[in-house]
């Protein structure tokens, strides 16, 4: 099984460890993983801003890079939603691209959904001494139905206990450009998330989208919480980088 890892622009720049962890998880599960060298960004920022032309250009670029593989795996619910749900409608009226967009969409999976649903992984390499609380990111949850998969996989991490926070399905206030365009509103929303995390009392908050995690981590630290770790689910499942 040959699969393409689409690391996402945010992981590439801000936290490459997430990409490396995803790579390790997939390789240890026996997949042949290629990382298409020309990948940049799925185009969601342009789509969200309402610029259909730019979004279409970047969608076509990504589709051309990803269509040679059996599967595309993305360590982000948000970018996976873009490829699975937005690309087909974005290119629906383009006879040259509609079928290609649909084919790539059908083969694309958010990382935990791929590990749990497609590979039916029953063991993960990671170990974590402590408790974690899981934040369900909006696009993964409501766009792709990712809910049980990360929890099933986390339950297989040695030493890990899950302490659910209240309102774990509530938005963290990131929303891409929203967090910058409406910084004050975003901060008010993420404050509620920080309070829910604090009330859960876990050692780490874990999620599947780096954007949400940067938002949550940034606000936790600014509020003075230097204790709660903020981790991508791939990092927890893969465990520490082998020396």
């Amino acid at each position, binding site marked *: 099984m040959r699969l393409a890892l689409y*690391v996402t*622009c945010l*992981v*590439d*720049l*801000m*936290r*490459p*460890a997430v990409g*490396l962890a995803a*790579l390790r998880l997939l390789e240890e599960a026996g997949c042949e993983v290629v*990382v298409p*060298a*020309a*990948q*940049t*960004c799925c185009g969601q*920022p*342009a*789509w*969200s*801003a*309402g*610029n*259909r032309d*730019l979004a279409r*250009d*970047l969608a076509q*670029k990504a589709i051309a890079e990803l269509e040679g593989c059996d599967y595309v795996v993305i360590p982000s619910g948000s970018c996976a939603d873009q490829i699975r749900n937005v690309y087909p409608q974005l290119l629906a009226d383009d006879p040259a691209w509609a079928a290609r967009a649909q084919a790539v969409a059908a083969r694309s999976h958010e990382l935990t959904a791929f590990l749990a649903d497609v590979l039916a992984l029953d063991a993960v390499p990671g170990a974590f001494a402590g408790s974690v609380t899981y934040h369900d990111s*909006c*696009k993964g949850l*409501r*766009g792709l139905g990712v809910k049980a998969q990360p929890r099933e996989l986390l339950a297989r991490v040695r030493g890990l206990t899950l302490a659910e926070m209240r309102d774990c*399905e509530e*938005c963290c*206030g990131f*929303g*891409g*450009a*929203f*967090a*910058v*365009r*409406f*910084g*004050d*509103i975003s*901060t*008010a*929303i*993420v404050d*509620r998330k920080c309070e829910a995390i604090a009330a859960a009392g876990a050692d780490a908050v874990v999620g599947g989208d780096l954007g949400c995690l*940067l*938002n949550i*981590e*940034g*606000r936790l*630290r*600014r509020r003075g919480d230097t204790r709660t770790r*903020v981790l991508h689910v791939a990092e927890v499942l893969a465990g520490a980088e082998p020396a």
Partner: protein
Amino acid sequence: MTAAVRSQAMFFQARAARQARDSGLQKTLEKARPLFVGKRAKGLAGLADDGLDFAGLRAACEAIRRRVVDDLDVWLELFEARATAGGAEVLWARDGDEVARLVVDIAQRHGVTKAVKSKSMLSEEARLNEALAAAGIRPVETDLGEYIVQLAGEAPSHIIAPAVHKTLAEVEALFAQHHERPVQARTAADIPALAAEARAVLRQHFLSAEMGISGANFLIAESGSAALVTNEGNGRMVTTLPRVHVVVTGIEKIVPTLDDFATLMRLLPRSATGQGISNYVSLLTGTRGADEREGPEKTVFILVDNGRAALAGSDFAAMLRCIRCGACMNHCPVYFSLGGHAYGWVYPGPMGSVLTPLFTGIENALDLPHASTGCNQCGSVCPVNIPLPALMHRLREMQHERGLRPWRERLALRAWAWLAARPGLYRWATRRAARYLRWLTDESGRIRVLGLAPEWTAGRDLAPPPGRTFHELYAARKRA
């Protein structure tokens, strides 16, 4: 845009920033939110007792509303014929100004000096209270929340809980001032006493007003009736005690049959307040008959377009399905960080962020379609399955197509997309960016000030990247 509109939605950004930092307002809203969300969840869970489920009912409700929106003119003609046969008069209004003109005219012809009102958001669209007052007719809001905001000289901040932004102390102060009594120390236990105080005042108004003005939750085509869904009983007083009853409502509120109405009633109160059924459900048909002792002598329906007809057949036709339950705002993280007044016009929250630009002009509400994280908590609770985030997204596209976005944003987006289309250059730029961000990191290991996005670091730190991009590390790994 008619004079009746007068939207403040273009000031969203400034109002929102102020309200997001208002800790008193935050506290008030934070108390209300779990009630709304929890009660709805419990109400929907109760459907199982009747062997029903949300998904199935929602599909049925959506189908009913779709049927109406697809053939709005047919159902409206049927309604007009049946309502007229029942003795009511049916008038049509193009916009808010025309609504105000018609109501004032009816009031003057019937010698009305005071009009009692039950909740009607459409009367807010028409700024009806202002128009009545200007004509020397006193409008008295009789829904408790509406009464409170009227005393405060404010607009409702929520479509079903107009005074949700008000604290107990604020209500006490308003009542003391307007009911001419000393201010007392109040706790939550005193809420029934305050309600009783308002009731006593309102009772006098019910008995003396010559005209009642109500909205309608639905208009039932087959019977020519208005359906009113209320909890306080004021709706019944307004619609039965005064000589004249005027129903002001949108043309999209129509449903074909009483059976359809019954189906929608399964979800409307549950979505709004979690109730299986509201305390009062009234079906108002025609005028008082010769052998009847109650009811108005004159009933007038004013059916209002004000931008609605243009939505039928457009990309926004789904919005006409809305049954005004408020679930979208009750589940919106943005609404509950701001309250409704930040939105600047009649309708707040996600449904308002779609309706305000459509009814008052896209160029007059540029922020609203962007004031969403795209979380889709609204769309997932909507009882008639309106894809609210998709509609907001379409409005964003229309802003872009019409060149309404700021040039800085357009330029930044184009530059970024140009770069993202050139992988070699993009790699070079991200390598530089990773090192730059590393360099910005202070001794505590965090980035506290980011010149390129000061809005981010105004409220948050930024966890710094390790200094090398994934693609660099991956290339190094492959070489090893």
